[in-house]
């Protein structure tokens, strides 16, 4: 199919982007691998389960409903079950190459003038002895089980690792009736306090979770870590220990906690595969973007966790800004500079003169503003400035071809949330010395079953980074292509993790590639 803008990823960022662009008259295809839009955050319990929604998700639920209804009312083409394996630059734009799920054998292509990468992130888990036992799940996995299928992973759980995601996972499990034996967080509470100003928003969210933890009598062990998971065919318990100021295990503080489930996570990493093979500049491990969420590759925008881990509200704000910018550029105008025309009420109609409809004369269907009120923290007064009366820029800056700029609330929210995300990231860091706890027989790369001993042998042979460890030990060569073990391998190698080169975001059948070969196509 052909479209103006292909948005890849239908999480909060992609949804907000698609709705913002569509409301500005751009033809949008919203492409996602999952069977429903929503991404990680709005992963929905299958409707048929008719679940009473967890109270903790209440206000998000309203935001989600708005996004969902906005999508249904919009002209956005939602392409679910589309696993994008590559985005190719073409003379007139881009071709998004996807495989149709769940088999991922049949190809589908979307031709677009511009692409917006909202591919989100994936959870990071650092290994420790015993982490491969059945009963050890990722924090996100536990959450997904609760949210998606309403399955309770076990009866007595420990939630461990580091990062703000552990809190909702612990409260979610507790609310679902699981006995949570402990929430084990390796960061020190003091570090969080130090970042309090920047974290204001997060802390209130956190405070809510803390209250719930208290209510469910969940013991919280900060500056502690799981040193080992025990069991033969399944998890029977974990050993936890206190960490000293340097992040080393304090001898003699080990204690055993019986449990049948361990939900563990160490933060998130952005999906940058598609951006990287498009040639987008990365900033460390994230896609680098400008204030309009543009990458350095013309025609490519990025938003949400792909550009940095910061939570759903930040993803929404970035997505909205990116969608507005893409629309403006597709209309061949710069986005209207801030402050611009703002609608924070879903009910406000799209003002005719300032919105350009490229392809037909119909007004943008559905809500013209897709930055949902619930997600715009510190909401500005919802003003609607008739075109030409907006304060600031001269009417000349809003010629008839001008497209609505992003909601100032979104811009403000992005600034504030990005700051707290940076603070969170520095507060929640895995213990510096965690590799010391890894015994030689601990499996590091689960796909290829490479142990820490084998990684250390590769280092001894002269490997010096993730790539050469992979070459000499096979760690990271398997199905997940090092997404799971990359950080651990880098840490064992004593170097900073680098973005791995994964030219295929998904494995692609050779037949699909071959059929695209010109000579093959003829025969």
């Amino acid at each position, binding site marked *: 199919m052909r479209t103006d803008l292909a948005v890849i990823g239908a999480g909060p960022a992609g949804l907000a982007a698609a709705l913002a662009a569509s409301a500005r008259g751009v033809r949008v295809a919203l492409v996602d691998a999952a069977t429903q839009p929503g991404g990680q955050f709005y992963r929905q319990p299958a409707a048929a389960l008719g679940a009473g929604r967890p109270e903790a998700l209440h206000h998000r639920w309203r935001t989600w409903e708005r996004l969902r209804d906005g999508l249904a009312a919009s002209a956005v083409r939602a392409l679910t079950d589309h696993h994008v394996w590559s985005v190719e630059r073409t003379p007139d734009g881009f071709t998004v190459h996807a495989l149709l799920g769940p088999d991922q054998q049949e190809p589908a292509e979307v031709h677009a003038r511009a692409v917006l990468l909202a591919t989100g992130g994936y959870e990071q888990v650092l290994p420790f002895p015993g982490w491969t036992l059945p009963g050890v799940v990722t924090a996100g996995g536990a959450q997904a089980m609760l949210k998606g299928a309403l399955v309770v992973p076990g009866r007595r759980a420990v939630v461990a690792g580091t990062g703000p995601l552990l809190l909702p996972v612990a409260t979610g499990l507790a609310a679902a009736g699981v006995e949570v034996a402990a929430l084990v967080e390796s960061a020190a509470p003091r570090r969080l306090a130090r970042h309090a100003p920047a974290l204001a928003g997060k802390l209130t969210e956190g405070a809510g979770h803390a209250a719930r933890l208290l209510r469910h009598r969940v013991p919280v062990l900060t500056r502690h870590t799981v040193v080992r998971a025990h069991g033969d065919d399944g998890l029977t318990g974990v050993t936890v220990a206190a960490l000293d100021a340097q992040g080393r295990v304090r001898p003699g503080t080990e204690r055993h906690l019986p449990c049948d489930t361990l939900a563990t996570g160490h933060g998130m990493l952005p999906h940058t595969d598609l951006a990287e093979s498009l040639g987008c500049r990365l900033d460390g491990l994230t896609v680098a973007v400008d204030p309009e969420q543009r990458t350095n590759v013309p025609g490519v925008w990025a938003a949400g966790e792909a550009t940095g881990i910061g939570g759903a509200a930040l993803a929404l704000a970035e997505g909205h800004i990116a969608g507005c910018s893409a629309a403006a550029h597709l209309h061949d105008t710069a986005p209207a500079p801030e402050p611009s025309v703002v609608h924070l009420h879903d009910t406000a109609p799209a003002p005719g003169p300032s919105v350009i409809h490229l392809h037909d004369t119909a007004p943008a269907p559905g809500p013209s503003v897709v930055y949902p009120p619930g997600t715009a923290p510190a909401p500005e007064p919802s003003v609607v400035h008739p075109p030409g009366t907006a304060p600031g820029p001269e009417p000349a800056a809003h010629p008839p071809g001008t497209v609505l700029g992003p909601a100032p609330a979104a811009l403000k929210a992005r600034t504030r949330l990005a700051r707290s995300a940076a603070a969170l990231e520095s507060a929640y860091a895995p213990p510096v010395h965690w590799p010391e706890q890894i015994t030689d027989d601990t499996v590091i790369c689960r796909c290829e079953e490479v142990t820490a001993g084998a990684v250390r042998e590769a280092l001894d042979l002269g490997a010096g980074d993730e790539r050469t460890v992979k070459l000499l030990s096979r760690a990271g*060569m398997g199905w997940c292509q090092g997404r799971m073990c990359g950080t651990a391998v880098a840490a064992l190698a004593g170097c900073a993790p680098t973005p791995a080169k994964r030219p*295929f975001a998904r494995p692609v*059948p050779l037949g699909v590639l071959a059929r*695209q070969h010109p000579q*093959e196509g003829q025969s």
Partner: protein
Amino acid sequence: MSESLTCDVVVVGAGVVGAAAALYAARAGLDAVVVDRGPVAGGTTGAGEGNLLVSDKEPGPELELALLSARLWADLAREGLGRAVEYEAKGGVVVAGTDRALAGLEKLAAEQRAAGVEAVPVPPDRLTDLEPYLTPGLAGGVHYPQDAQVMPALAAAHLLRASKARVLTGREVTGVLRGPDGAVCGVRTDRGDLHAPAVVNAAGTWGGEVAARAGVSLPVLPRRGFVLVTEPLPPRIRHKVYAADYVADVASDSAALQTSPVVEGTPAGPVLIGASRERVGFDRSLSLPALRALAAGATGLFPFLAGVRAMRTYAGFRPYLPDHLPAIGADPRAPGLFHACGHEGAGIGLATGTGHLIAQVLAGRTPDLDLGPFRPDRFTEEAE
């Protein structure tokens, strides 16, 4: 922190060629230090495939070097390194789709046989005895039992370990030291000088840069190649299999994309399909056209591969010299400087022979092969 070291020979480059040079130098009784700005096998050695081919070479100096190298690889495998470097003497099968291609292939095979290569013609109806999953309807092929395979990164690492040479990684050679008489007396690195009466330039694709740091020119250029790697499969492809037009590509002077995939299984299960050949400088960006051509070639040889997934692809830059032969031997323009680079798409295969010959020269012995065709200063003369 600067450190000054003295040894008999400094080898610049911890790729497979530097590793082999270190190994044979050590066996010749020399104290070698290997220095690399990256880790071991971080250059092209970690970005290619491990075909040790005699089958793709026309009679001439490169084939002689390949035959010598093949013997040395087999010796190393016998001495106990075989498992560590994943050496497999699996043989190659070259197939021809048309009678015309077959005629060309058989002519080449005859010339190769005269030069000492084992090359056994295979009629079309016997091809599936060797490779049961080959596409039907091929015109015929030739079986090359001497073709073999190693895992290149493991080969470099284990050759280095066996050499017992000191290996200094993460250290860049920034200059080549020359005495008042012009003779080379070591290298300057970003972390101190290394003193030695001999320096071996085994910097692969960057060999021209290192040569320039010694004040001499060597026109090594990059030639990009992509490899496709499939999901792990049960062993189905037994040999190195490729189509006869591959030989034409290797010798080609065209800068345009040429593809003729070598298809091979690996001990770990994935099938490797490679490699494309393009001269596009050091451009790393993904080229779907190159990958499509590789996939089309591979599925053309083995139709079952159409349903097999490519897990990943990677690119490397072969070091090539204008006449497609490596530079091996002493550089008369800088006494004490030796070159062992520019092996293009055959550096893994040719590493052992190259290391052996360099060690002979370093030790003042007469090399087993005439190094004339590999003279490092041969391009300077042309320019004059």
